[in-house]
């Protein structure tokens, strides 16, 4: 079926308008201006230019795709026209916006439509360069669409990875410069002060293309070769890989420096909370939006017990305080779970949210200030000491540690990662245990579960308690990382983040929790340079994840089945995806 000429033009223009609208949106929220201070390739193209260009290229790709008939042969000429048309529409829209901005004072409404923005936009060669670049971008997009899969995948991958390298260039640079001469020189060669060097970008691009093509050409051979090795050999290879990974994990903080170690610590703590919520929500289906309360309890317990400040109660060592904190969190889990045992579904969500807020309000209130420090918080928390801890002398004087003191992120890294691994292991065992199956039964249908003899009260309480215990452990480690504790750290947003990360990672799946933590917590921490737009990307990423991969990044088998993923390995069981109810 021939695509009518009018349809072609109209579709292309419509796509171009969408691309232009997105480009204007990016200008109006100030992203273009802020990103222009950062280069993708030093002295060649800034991040701001890049996103505008990307908008035009994307509209080219989409236009090409929209105007090609999947049944017919690809018609390159038509797609190119469509791409060019879309690109030029985007360009014209941007140009029109600039013209408007120069004549009318848009700043009255939109703060970012400032003179400096328009100066920036017109500094490249005037207003009418945009349609010209638009055509080129659109054609480029169409070309990308038309490329055979063999070439397109490596090229898109290369663009993506080079872009990532540019974003993280500051980080890599700082880490590598701190090492010895050769690596430091390499860093300066590849990474400039504000972005990649031209050579660096070229090298990354070419390298990724080369590796991609090599892998796709050879991968089947390699995999066939691997399966031909005898079982013993395979296990040996696996052990070797495992040992290598362990070595990397152990050496990482020493090499990469305290900042990356700190990011990993924070990711591990969120992963700990995620593993806890995974039990409450993922296994047992109890939607708890007040999870940060248990984190707070663990943190405050450790703070009160180990602080050498005015609020320290006992001045005991961290290694004793930590299990106590876990126990106290467990009790709190029961305590807060009891009133809401009979509450279901979304009511549970708001009730637990309320509990989370109550805990935060009480912790920071003047009412409980004599015990919990009030707004001033608890400061002076003793760092863990692997050795003998000197005696408590007087208020506000830290105790001397005769041994290894876990003073900074580099040391606490080991504590945090080890805890995460241990807890993940425990969670895995729980998943396969009878208790774990009881939880999943409750999640699917409470009444049926009760009819089958599962004690609802006991099982639910255990879900709350164990979830709380894990979160409490996370709180305990957080306290010694920061060295002080304030009620303002216990906001609702933390609970929301934990819920998001287990769903994005894959609900009920333990590797999913870790992946979710890395994606939703680790990445934004590493990208602090674009921190103003961090939450914008975060929100967009959440939406896009749910639209494209709702089962999560590393889903459990159950979730995959329920969302009847079109995967050859998974047999689609029932037609209706209703079972994943997270009921109370």
């Amino acid at each position, binding site marked *: 079926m021939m695509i009518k000429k009018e349809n072609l033009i109209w579709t292309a223009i419509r796509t171009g308008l969408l691309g232009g609208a997105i480009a204007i949106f990016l200008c*109006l*929220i100030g*992203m273009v201006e802020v990103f222009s201070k950062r280069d993708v390739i030093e002295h060649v193209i800034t991040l701001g230019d890049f996103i505008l260009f990307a908008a035009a290229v994307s509209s080219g790709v989409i236009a090409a795709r929209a105007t090609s008939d999947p049944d017919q042969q690809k018609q390159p000429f038509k797609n190119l026209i469509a791409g060019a048309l879309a690109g030029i529409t985007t360009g014209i829209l941007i140009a029109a916006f600039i013209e408007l901005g120069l004549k009318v004072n848009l700043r009255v*409404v*939109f*703060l*970012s439509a400032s003179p400096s923005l328009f100066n920036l936009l017109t500094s490249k060669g005037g207003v009418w360069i945009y349609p010209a670049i638009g055509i080129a971008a659109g054609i480029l997009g169409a070309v990308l669409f038309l490329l055979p899969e063999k070439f397109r995948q490596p090229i898109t991958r290369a663009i993506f990875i080079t872009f990532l390298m540019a974003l993280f260039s500051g980080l890599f640079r700082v880490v590598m410069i701190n090492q010895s001469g050769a690596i430091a020189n390499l860093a300066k060669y590849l990474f400039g002060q504000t972005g990649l060097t031209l050579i660096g970008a070229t090298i990354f691009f070419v390298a990724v293309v080369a590796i991609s093509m090599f892998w796709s050409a050879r991968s089947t051979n390699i995999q066939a070769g691997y399966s031909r090795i005898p079982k013993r050999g395979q296990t040996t290879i696996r052990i070797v890989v495992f040992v290598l990974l362990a070595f990397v994990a152990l050496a990482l903080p020493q090499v990469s420096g305290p900042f990356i170690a700190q990011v990993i610590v924070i990711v591990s703590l969120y992963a700990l909370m995620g593993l806890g919520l995974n039990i409450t929500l993922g296994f047992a289906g109890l*939607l708890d939006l007040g999870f940060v309360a248990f984190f707070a309890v663990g943190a405050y317990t450790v703070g009160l017990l180990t602080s050498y400040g005015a609020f320290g109660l006992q001045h005991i060592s961290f290694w004793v305080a930590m299990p106590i904190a876990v126990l106290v969190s467990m009790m709190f889990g029961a305590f807060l779970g*009891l*009133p*809401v*045992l*009979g*509450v*279901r579904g*979304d*009511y549970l969500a*708001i*009730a637990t*949210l*309320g*509990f989370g*807020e*109550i805990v935060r*309000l*009480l912790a*920071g*209130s*003047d*009412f409980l200030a004599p015990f919990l420090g009030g707004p001033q918080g608890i400061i002076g928390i003793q760092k863990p000491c692997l050795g003998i801890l000197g005696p408590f002398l007087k208020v506000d004087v830290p105790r001397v540690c005769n041994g290894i003191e876990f003073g900074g992120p580099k040391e606490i890294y080991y504590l945090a990662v080890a805890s995460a691994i241990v807890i993940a292991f425990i969670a895995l065992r729980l998943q396969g245990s009878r208790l774990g199956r009881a939880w999943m039964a409750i999640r699917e249908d409470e009444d049926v579960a009760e009819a089958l003899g599962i*004690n609802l*009260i*006991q099982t639910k309480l255990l879900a709350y308690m164990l979830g709380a215990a894990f979160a409490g452990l996370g709180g305990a480690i957080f306290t010694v990382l920061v060295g002080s504790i304030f009620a303002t750290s216990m906001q*609702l947003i933390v609970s*929301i983040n934990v819920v*998001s990360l287990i*769903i*994005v990672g894959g*609900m009920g799946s333990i590797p999913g929790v870790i992946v979710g933590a890395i994606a939703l917590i680790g990445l934004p921490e590493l990208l602090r340079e674009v921190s103003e*737009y961090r*939450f*914008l990307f*975060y*929100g*967009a*990423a*959440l*939406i896009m*994840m*749910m*639209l494209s991969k*709702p089962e999560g990044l590393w889903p459990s088998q159950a979730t995959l089945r*329920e*969302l009847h993923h079109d995967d050859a390995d998974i047999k689609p069981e029932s037609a209706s*995806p*209703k*079972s*994943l*109810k*997270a009921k109370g």
Partner: protein
Amino acid sequence: MRTSFGERLLDLAVSGFLWGFRILIVLVVVLGTFLTIRAGKYTGEQWIDFVVFGISQGSIYALIALGYTMVYGILRMINFAHGEIFMSGAFGGYFIATWLTVSGFMDKYPALGFVIAILSGMLVSTLIALLVERIAYRPLRGAPRLVPLISAIGASFFLQYTFRGFFGPGVYAYPSITALDGEWMFFGVGVLKVQIIVAIAAFVMMGILYSIVMFTKIGKAMRAVSEDKDVAALMGIDVNRIIVSTFALGAAMAGAAGVLYALTYRQINFFTGFTPGIKAFTAAVLGGIGNIPGAMVGGLVLGIVESVGPALFLDSLGIPRPYQLKDAIAYIMLVMILLFRPSGILGERVSKKA
């Protein structure tokens, strides 16, 4: 035999604890009230002031809660981004209101200016809600419950920071409308004009919404879809159109609430919608989720308890700075209501999941 004894003991412990919890709260409430009245710290006029503040705040909560409850009733979905819809209405009304005030129109025709400001807020919030529904919610209609929730959370963040990008992190101050300043006297008690007007406007909007839902054809269709989606489709109702209309109506209410809020409290910024969003959801649950009169009742009760609670219950018990805990009072009240009446004050009304 042993297990069931252990289980019975556990049951007993749980019931005991729950009853203890209820009694403790009731005791605190009664004792606090008694001591406060006895101490006589506040005059009768001040108590009336507290109640009026509560009604004014509560009517705004009620308007926002209406949107939550309608969407939940039809889709069983917590529209987390609803607070941001409210905020967008406040911003939408801001520019019009400022322009009207600066040009003097607001002074000449205050009533007309007021209405225009509210309508512009409603327009902006409805547009944004429709956009969000189209992009973030519609593709996920059949998905398990938590998936649209996360999408809504994402939409909430996205909207907040979009508005921050557009308008900056600072506060925007609504213009001072002279027609709204001053007090009116009711039985010798002075009540602020703006609060009365806001409360009346809120009630009018709720009334309009109620009539739409009860007496018009589209309202009947909404009720049908909210009752049972599949059967309504069989009856020839365009379910998609009804869902979109529900979103639009709820958003319009929230937008109006935004403008009213801004006229009362004068300061708005990109984060303004977050806390009222949570409170309004609490109010919706309090009154019975899915239940429109329930949302109104819930909102008013929440507003009044937040306003009167700290002074009435906590002040005389010797708790310092009781207003820091006003949210805590609201949440404890919610839990208490859920313990006594698990489906809210007026009962829930949600669609059957076939």
